[in-house]
Every structure is written in structure tokens, then in C-alpha cells.
């Protein structure tokens, strides 16, 4: 059959962010997928290196709006790892509250968007209606609906006002009955089952091979979660469960996210109720030379930061490895062979976002790919050899 290329993006209602998926299709069947990103590249790592350690949190926060807590969380942990210090107990709890609040709103957001991709706009509206309440909670606690500006190396920037806690708890409690209803509705919906089950299969082996993270891997039976594997924040102080399913398909990912929301609600509530007193900040004055790593289980999987300090007040090197970067290649395993309609929801199922994933491929003006990752590495190696030759180094 004749092959044609359908491009999704860079501006497409499927995505809030610009990126380009080139689906090679035969009729309605996708045979190959290629991802072209770079529409969102802002050179964050370099920007971070020109800010001081404290200011960097704001750049890092703006890697992405949905992980606007996850990145600062991982970053501050990396900086604290350099010194090394343990943040005060109250700060740990506050960090956990903000991070889990973000997970709830992120998963609700995903549900809404997934519904939207399936033409099920009612789910989109219903879910985002709940999300509004969570965003209100975030606004009460942190002063903004997104980009919370709460994290700083050594603790948190702002305290949670104890007067606000009852209101926040009330708002969280208020969404639970509706969430229950929607959960049951989603789990029972025969059309959703027909659309989501058995598509976009990522087997356990593939999940391991591709190093899939977060719900993408947990839906394939890989029980991995930084919050459990190497607890930090207040995650070892509260009781919660890791959600793992074995179904490996898009449905599994949806179920994982659905159930994870409940765990997050549990964590946020426990933390708010048991918020310990004390300091919220260590007032770190200087960062010694050295290097540190920090990880945080973002809504989409482990986010990882590496920071090197040379003793000045700026990071000498800051490296970000975000979850979508690892999840994106799994599309190679899941998309080919599906139909165009399924492809969109499979793409959506990893909850993709590229703000943090911007890497490089070279294309000609006409969009023909000239160099991919492999070629670029080869070119780089050749150039290094050439330079070495010129400099007379063996």
C-alpha cells in the first residue's frame, strides 16, 4: 500500500506545546514514527549556569509548568547533596505537600486531555473542574496556581500558614466524592474499554529496555518509584502505596494515574494534618565545590538533576534529565502498527511534554532529516579525532 506521512504538529490541537510527530502511515495504519522536537528549546541548562543557586530554582521551575515543583525538588536535592545537608522536618513536609498537590493536578490534567483526545470533551470538563479546586488549594498554600516558587536549596521559601490548612483540607475533601463517581464511571465505560484496552502495548521487558519511568513503567508491571525506592521528603513518614498494574496498555496507564491520585490525596491530607513545627529553611550561605545529584518522582516519572559547584555562587554545570526524555522513545515500541486514531491516544498516554526534553536532530529546510543522534555522535567523534590530530595528541 502507498505510504504517506502525516505530521502531527508542530501546532496541533493535540498538544499544548509545539513539537512535530511524523507518522508514516499506510492507509490508516501507522508503520513508523519519528519525533522532531526543538520548538521549545530555551537552553535552560545554560541559563541556570548564569543564575546563582537561589535564582536557578526559578529557571528550573520554568522548565515546565506541570512539573514546576518536580524540577526544583530534584534540583534542590542535588544542591543539598553537594554540601551535604538534611532539610528541616517542616520543610520536608511542605515540599511533599506541594509535590503531591502537583501530582494530583497533573493527573487530572492528563485525564482531561486524554478525554479531549478521544473526543470525550465532557470528561475534559469534569476533570478540569476538579482540578480547579486543587489549583485553589495550591493558590492558598503557595500564592499561585502554578509555578509555586516554594523551593530553595536548604528548605522552602514560604511557610504554610496554619490558618489556611482547614480551608485547603476542606477543598480536597470536597473533590473526593466526585472523583469517586468519575473513577467508577471511567472504569465501567464500555466504549473507553474498547478504545483503550490492548492498544499501545509496552511489555515489561520493553519498559525495562527503554528505561521507561513513572506511570508508563508502572503500568507495565515495573514497580519503580523514587518515592519508595529511595525515600526523601516526607514520603517515608506517611503511609501510601505504589500503584502497579500489569496490563501494559494505555488502559493500564490510565488506571495507574487514576489510583495514584488517591494515594496523593492521602499523602497531602496526612502531611497537612501532621505538619511538624520548626524551621523551614537552613539559610545556606555558601555551596562548597563538588557535585551532587537529586531525583524526584515527578508525575511522569523520575526527574533527575546533576549540579556541579566550583565554590562560586553559581552552578558550574547543571544537567537535567526529565521523565519524558526517557518515556518518549517507548513510542517506537508502542505506536507502529496502530491506527492513526489509536496513535494519538498512545502518544498522549505517556503524558508527553517536551519542555524538558529538547534535544537535537538536524533537518534540511524541506524537513528531510540529515543527521539523527547516531550521526551527530559520529560527527562529534570525528571532529574530536581531527582536533586531536591537529594538536598532535594521540
Amino acid at each position, binding site marked *: 500500500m502507498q505510504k*504517506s*506521512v*502525516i505530521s502531527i504538529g508542530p501546532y*496541533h*490541537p*493535540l498538544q499544548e506545546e509545539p513539537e512535530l510527530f511524523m507518522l508514516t502511515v499506510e492507509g*490508516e495504519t501507522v508503520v513508523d514514527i519519528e519525533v522532531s522536537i526543538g520548538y521549545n528549546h530555551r537552553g535552560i541548562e545554560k541559563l541556570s549556569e548564569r543564575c546563582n543557586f537561589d535564582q536557578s530554582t526559578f529557571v528550573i521551575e520554568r522548565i515546565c509548568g506541570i512539573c514546576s515543583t518536580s524540577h526544583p525538588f530534584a534540583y534542590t536535592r542535588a544542591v543539598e547533596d553537594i554540601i551535604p545537608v538534611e532539610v528541616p522536618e517542616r520543610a520536608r513536609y511542605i515540599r511533599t505537600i506541594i509535590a503531591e498537590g502537583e501530582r494530583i493536578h497533573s493527573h487530572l490534567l492528563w485525564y482531561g486531555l486524554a*478525554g*479531549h*483526545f*478521544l*473526543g*470525550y*470533551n*465532557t*470528561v475534559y*470538563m*469534569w476533570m478540569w*473542574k476538579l482540578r480547579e479546586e486543587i489549583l485553589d488549594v495550591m493558590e492558598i498554600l503557595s500564592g499561585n496556581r502554578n509555578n509555586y516558587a516554594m523551593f530553595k536549596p536548604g528548605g522552602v521559601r514560604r511557610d504554610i500558614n496554619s490558618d489556611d490548612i482547614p480551608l485547603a483540607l476542606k477543598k480536597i475533601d470536597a473533590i473526593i466524592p466526585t472523583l469517586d463517581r468519575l473513577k467508577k464511571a471511567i472504569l465501567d*465505560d464500555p*466504549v*473507553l474499554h*474498547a*478504545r483503550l484496552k490492548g492498544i499501545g502495548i509496552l511489555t515489561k521487558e520493553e519498559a525495562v529496555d527503554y528505561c521507561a519511568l513513572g506511570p508508563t513503567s508502572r503500568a507495565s508491571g515495573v514497580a519503580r518509584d523514587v518515592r519508595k525506592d529511595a525515600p526523601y521528603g516526607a514520603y517515608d513518614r506517611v503511609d501510601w502505596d505504589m500503584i502497579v498494574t500489569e496490563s501494559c496498555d494505555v488502559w493500564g496507564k490510565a488506571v495507574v494515574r487514576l489510583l495514584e491520585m488517591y494515594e496523593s490525596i492521602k499523602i497531602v491530607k496526612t502531611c497537612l494534618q501532621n505538619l511538624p513545627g520548626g524551621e523551614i529553611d537552613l539559610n545556606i550561605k555558601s555551596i562548597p565545590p563538588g557535585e551532587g545529584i537529586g531525583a524526584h518522582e515527578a508525575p511522569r516519572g523520575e526527574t533527575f538533576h546533576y549540579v556541579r559547584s566550583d565554590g562560586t555562587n553559581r552552578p558550574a554545570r547543571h544537567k537535567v534529565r526529565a521523565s519524558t526524555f526517557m518515556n518518549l522513545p517507548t513510542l517506537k515500541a508502542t505506536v507502529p502498527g496502530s*491506527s*492513526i*486514531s*489509536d496513535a*494519538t491516544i498512545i502518544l498522549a498516554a505517556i503524558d508527553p511534554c517536551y519542555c524538558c526534553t529538547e534535544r537535537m536532530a538536524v533537518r534540511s529546510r524541506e524537513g528531510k532529516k540529515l543527521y539523527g543522534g547516531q550521526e551527530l555522535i559520529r560527527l562529534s567523534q570525528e571532529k574530536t579525532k581531527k582536533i586531536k590530530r591537529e594538536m598532535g595528541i594521540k
Partner: protein
Amino acid sequence: MEITRYIFAFLIFPGFLFTVIVGLFSTWVDRKVTARVQWRVGPPLMQPLYDFVKLLGKETLIPAGGSRAVFLSAPIVGLVAVILVSTILWLANLWGTAFVGDLIVVVYLLVIPSLAIMIGGLASGNPLATTGASREMKLILAYELPFLICMATVILKSGMSIKLVEIAKTPIIGSISGVLVALIALLCIQAKLGFVPFDVAEAETEIMSGPYIEYSGVPLAVFKLTQATMLFTLPIFLITAFLGGLNFSGWGILWTVLKYLAILVLIVVIKNTNPRVRIDQAVKFFWYYLAPVAAAAFVLAVFGQIYAISWL
């Protein structure tokens, strides 16, 4: 004189003008009910009209690769077909004006808007529009089969009549087979309207409005108008064929309006509580599930007719 009456009927009442006005009102009902089901307020009453006027005032861009004449005429063909259907239906219901076989003509005419969308999409030369057009084609093939069986049942139940006037007199819904075919026809109409779960052809998040992708300005306005008038005409068709037609004497007016609104709301609620199915699932659904059920209903109706059991 006769001819002026038909021209009047086609252009003003119950043809173009009337259909368009009530059609736009129906789109408003659609959007309002959608919004309310989603906990929203929804658009103001005049919104569909504003949208239409605005589109008329916008620039019309014509894709470079496409065929200009086909691209521009497709929407008009679709619209004219719907207006014709509407005129025939209303004339039959109101004044009993009818000709033999008008049911068949209506059924044929109702395919034309979908064909127009397809042709327009193909003419724009956009790969996504082409995909949309090919999906539309598959969808037509899918829903026409059960739809035609339903129509056969209707003809059978109304005493082998293919005149709308006579069909409208028999409320077919009053029997088991009648209920079955009415429900099936409702789903077919959902597909004809291109509503979720059968909006595969314009699936915005998959193929960016499919056939409409390259349309802007006036032709887009005409397409929107076609959709609006369809939203008015198809429920009326349903009422005529299954629910005993329109009645405008005394309380009948209220009853008619209620019937119409009920069907409209039903369609909209179905649209809003379902995800979109895949095209292959849609085809399967219509062929493997609805068509056999429709056939069974037909058989029931045949038995009913032979043994004169009215509730079959």
C-alpha cells in the same frame, strides 16, 4: 402560480430561511445543552448567528494544491440538499403535499451532505483532509446499511407506502420492532451528523477537523450552516418516520416541539457522554451489531404484518 409557491416554499418557508433559522437555534440548543452537561454556562442565544456572520466576513483562503471549483462548490451542494429535504419534509407534514417515493428521494438526498464533505475534503488536497474524507466514506458505507433496513421496516409497517404523508400518519414507535428501528435510526443519525462517538471524519484532535481543515471564510460558513440545518432536519425526519409526524393543531404544536427538543437533547447527551470510537470500530458496530438487530426488527415487523399483531 404553482411554481411561485414552490419557490416560496424552497426559499422562505419551510425551506431555506426557516430551516436556517431553526437550524441555528438547534445548534444553540446543542451547544447550550453540551455546556450545561459539562457544568458550564454556554453561549448566548445569538451565538450561532454571530459565528455565521463573522465567517462570512472573513477572508476565504483557497489551498494552492486543490481544485478551486470543486472546493468552493462542495459546501453549496451539501446545503442545497439539506434544504430540499427540509422543504419536502415540511410540505408533507404541513400541507400533505407529497409525491410517490418522496421517502426514497429524502433518503438519497440525506447522503449528499456527507458526500459534499468528502468531495470538499478531497479537493483541498491536504493529507489530513484526505484521511478525513476516506473515513467519511467508510462511515457512510457503515451506517447506510442499518439505516436502509430501518427505512424498509418503516415502509413495511406503514402499509408498503413510500409516501411521507402516509408514513407520518403511522407512529411506528408503538411496537417492538418500531422501537428497535427508531433507536437504530437515531444512532445512524448521530453518525450522519458527525457527532461523537461517530465524529471520526472530523476528529479534531486526530486529524484537525479533517475535511474542513483548509476551509475558511464563506465556504466554511456554508458548511457550518449545513451542519446546523442537518441538526434541524434529521430529527424532523426521525419524527416524521417514526413518531407520527408533526402536528400543528391545538396542543399538537406543543407536543411536536417537545418531540423535537427531546430528540435533539437525546442526541446531544449521547454526544457528550461517549468517547469517539475508531473508524473500524464504528464500521463493526454498524455492520455486526446494528444491521443484524435492524434485520431482526424487520423480520419481526414482517411477522407482525402477516399475523396482524400490532405490537410486534
